[in-house]
């Protein structure tokens, strides 16, 4: 029997080849169209439900972050190494009922700023008189961020400033002045840190301190003994500084319990957040690690933590920030971790991880980031919050790494070494010179509106978040006690921004200002579940969340058109549970933890 192929004449073959060419060309055209097409159907951008206005200057905030100048031995990549340090944290340090703001700068001689909220929409910088301005000094290091927490439970918010250098703990003396108690607290440790969180891991009513480390602690960026200070992998680096856990002994002193608890990751951690993620009553710790996979430390009854990677190991990336929020109103805290994306070069893709740790069939996180949320450029800080008070979380992401010469990009140079052998790029001297190049600079922030199953839509432009600064930290706070979340952004080497939020509807809301008694006074770690008309929302009072940021202590819940709340369940850090039925709405409720 003759071979069928032998029966095919050249003309037949030519015809068939032509027929194959049609879908072939179609595939190329399809690729071009897919490239140009929006990743999702556009949202109704004319009605995102709120407007953000840049009212920084009107509020009297004139803070500009300055980046550090480092050892000339690494001058070739100084813009890269010195690209962090802009931070913002929120607390009512003077107890007047208005949230205040603390910004850090990172250059020797440049002051940090403590903006006291006057309550009339304006702020005044009182850092100098408070004793919190002059923290960037040779020998001590430069500020990278701060977290507020009442570590001595005296009713006044204290503050820890973490630096590329020594930690600095300040006790709030009288609501106006702060005293450096670092030495007395046993915290005089050199640690090149970009993050810290307050967490009462053993539920003894005292805030403990978890400090993340970036460069090793033997690295002094102003007096380098070696230039081999960089990461040993772009994806699986383990040669970063060691994170530290300090146990609050209650007598003003802290004890290093890192090894005892097993939380000393050396994965170049950029951000940490604590919450009871598996809902067993004990706060767990979630880490976003640069050059490596995320890590989840599960708290074993305050005795020890076990490192777990339930669903976090599928891809290793460059974790920049971790924000916790109830994404789909399921009553669980999910995690959003920012990463790097640059068109054509690298799509590490942000992770939006739905928490299924409590689902006995899953016991893991499940990444559900659609392309819109996955690509926010070189993303840094992020926060969940209900910006339009409709009862679902929005997601604010700041981004942009280095904006310098807009015509020169470092990405091509970066691509040379990024895939290379670790021995080469571990040495800072090997890196191509940065010069005045930009690296994912001039990126617009993303403001994602949650449309449920329809996915997320970026409405940044339509709501007015149009700055192109290199955002690092973003925090939410109801600065005017209006029942509305305002947005504060710390930008690297650039001015800070206050976006005041103007919802365009009369949606209802409720806010809770909690005070711990058996728990720490700041109520950090308290998780609140609000139940309304079948909708459940969970939020947590954070001891630091996002990247180099901390949100308003008061928990804000949008209620949409519903003007009632069925009940509120408060899970206090002490383990106590409190239920409030039918509380009043459109108010800030002050709740004190029952003493028994």
């Amino acid at each position, binding site marked *: 029997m003759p071979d069928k192929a032998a029966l095919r004449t050249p003309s037949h073959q030519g015809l068939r080849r032509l027929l194959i060419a049609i879908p*072939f060309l179609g595939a190329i055209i399809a690729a071009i169209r897919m490239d140009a097409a929006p990743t999702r159907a556009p949202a109704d951008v004319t009605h995102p439900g709120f407007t953000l206005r840049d009212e920084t200057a009107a509020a009297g905030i004139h803070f500009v972050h300055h980046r550090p100048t480092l050892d000339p031995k690494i001058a070739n990549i100084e813009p890269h190494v010195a690209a962090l340090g802009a931070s913002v944290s929120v607390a009512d340090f003077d107890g007047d009922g208005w949230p205040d703001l603390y910004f850090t700068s990172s250059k020797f001689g440049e002051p940090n700023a403590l903006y006291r909220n006057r309550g009339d929409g304006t702020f005044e910088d009182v850092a100098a008189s408070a004793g919190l301005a002059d923290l960037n000094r040779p020998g001590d290091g430069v500020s990278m961020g701060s977290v507020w927490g009442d570590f001595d439970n005296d009713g006044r918010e204290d503050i820890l400033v973490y630096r590329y250098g020594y930690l600095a703990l300040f006790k709030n003396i009288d609501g106006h002045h702060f005293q450096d108690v670092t030495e007395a607290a046993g915290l005089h440790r050199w640690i090149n840190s970009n993050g810290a969180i307050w967490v009462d891991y053993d539920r003894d009513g005292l805030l403990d301190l978890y400090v993340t480390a970036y460069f090793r602690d033997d690295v002094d960026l102003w007096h380098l003994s070696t230039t081999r200070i960089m990461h040993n992998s772009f994806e699986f680096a383990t040669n970063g500084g060691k994170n530290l856990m300090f146990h609050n002994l209650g007598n003003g002193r802290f004890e290093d319990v890192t090894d005892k608890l097993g939380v000393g990751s050396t994965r170049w951690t950029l951000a940490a957040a604590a919450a009871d993620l598996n809902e067993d009553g004990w706060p767990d710790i979630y880490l976003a690690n640069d050059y490596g996979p995320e890590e989840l430390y599960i708290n074993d009854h305050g005795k020890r933590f076990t490192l777990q990677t339930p669903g976090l190991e599928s891809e290793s990336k460059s974790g920049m920030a971790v924000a916790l929020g109830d994404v789909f109103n399921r009553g669980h805290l999910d995690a959003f971790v920012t990463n790097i994306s640059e068109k054509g070069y690298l799509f590490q893709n942000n992770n939006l991880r739905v928490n299924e740790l409590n689902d006995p069939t899953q016991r893991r996180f499940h990444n559900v980031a659609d392309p819109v949320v996955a690509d926010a450029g070189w993303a840094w800080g992020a926060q969940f919050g209900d910006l339009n008070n409709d009862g679902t979380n929005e997601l604010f992401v700041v981004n942009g790494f280095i904006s310098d010469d807009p015509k020169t990009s470092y990405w091509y140079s970066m691509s040379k070494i990024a895939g290379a052998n670790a021995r080469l790029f571990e040495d800072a001297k090997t890196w191509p010179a940065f010069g005045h190049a930009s690296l994912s600079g001039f990126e617009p922030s993303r403001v994602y509106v949650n449309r449920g199953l329809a996915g997320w839509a970026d409405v940044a432009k339509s709501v007015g978040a149009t700055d192109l600064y290199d955002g690092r930290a973003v925090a939410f706070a109801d600065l005017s006690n209006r029942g509305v979340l305002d947005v504060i952004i710390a930008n690297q080497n650039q001015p800070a921004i206050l976006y005041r939020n103007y919802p365009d509807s009369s949606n209802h809301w409720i806010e809770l200002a909690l005070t711990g008694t058996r728990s720490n006074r700041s109520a950090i770690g308290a998780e609140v579940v609000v139940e309304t008309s079948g909708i459940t929302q969970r939020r947590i009072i954070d001891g630091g969340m996002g990247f180099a940021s901390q949100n308003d202590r008061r928990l804000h819940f949008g209620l949409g058109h519903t003007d009632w709340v069925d009940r509120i369940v408060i899970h206090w850090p002490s383990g106590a549970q409190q239920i409030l039925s039918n509380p009043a709405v459109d108010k800030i409720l002050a709740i004190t933890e029952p003493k028994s």
Partner: protein
Amino acid sequence: MTDAGAVSQPSLRWWQRSRSLDPRYLIAGLITLVLLAAQLRYHVVGGYERLAVALLTCTITEALLSWFARGRVVNLQSAYISGISLTLLLKPQGATLWPFVLGGFLAIASKYVLQYRGNHLWNPTNFAISCLLLAAPNRVSVLSHQWGNDVATNLVIWVFGLVIAARVRVVHITLTYVVSFLVLNSLRATLLHQPVLPEIAPITGPMYQLFVFFMITDPRTVVRERRWQIIVAVLVAVVETAIRFGSDQGWPLPTAFNVGPAFLALAIVGPIAKAIDLARSGAMPRSAGSPATS
């Protein structure tokens, strides 16, 4: 117990038997090893659905097109290799899968459409990657540092790669390209007064390992004579160096050239060289069979 009636065959050692093995099996085995090592150690795939989609697209396309064009379904080894290569190399935005569908289809279909004298001209994976980088730079990137930066893993790939490249008799192409890359880019760095190390660093990365063992050495798309194979490998390195020079100088090249200069260089030089080779040899169209390439 032996079969007395059987015809006696001289007993062969495994390496002697392996000499008669179709090279495609060796290449398929190596790339499977690479995939396994990369996934088990680094989770480099980024989701098994990507692997499934790429493999299915490549094999189904190969089966359908070979049946349609040649009246029979050809060996699917090369489609398998293409599927694995695309899975390793393509890194798309978000969790999108269409680049694996379009990439797989383009890789295989290119063999049936872009022919000269009955032979295809582009390495299928090289064509698909170059095409996607040029057509969809906002949605697609390629393997960079997702594969760790560990010398041990790279060494394993190099050892197995060299053994198999030697077996397939293309090791001179690999080595010529590597030496040319090192020399030319050192020269480029010197000319531009740049440090040499960053300029030769890329060759130590995983993308280049896939390139030197699975693309530039593709038996079906390299020219035939050893001498010309060496010249073409040098030319690929020359064009790549020229592209990098352009990137250094800030020429307004499409992003694809900055991201994958080696891919683009091969996509430019390879088909031209192959076409000239075919024209010189006067090769006749093949009536059946399928290219055995990745």
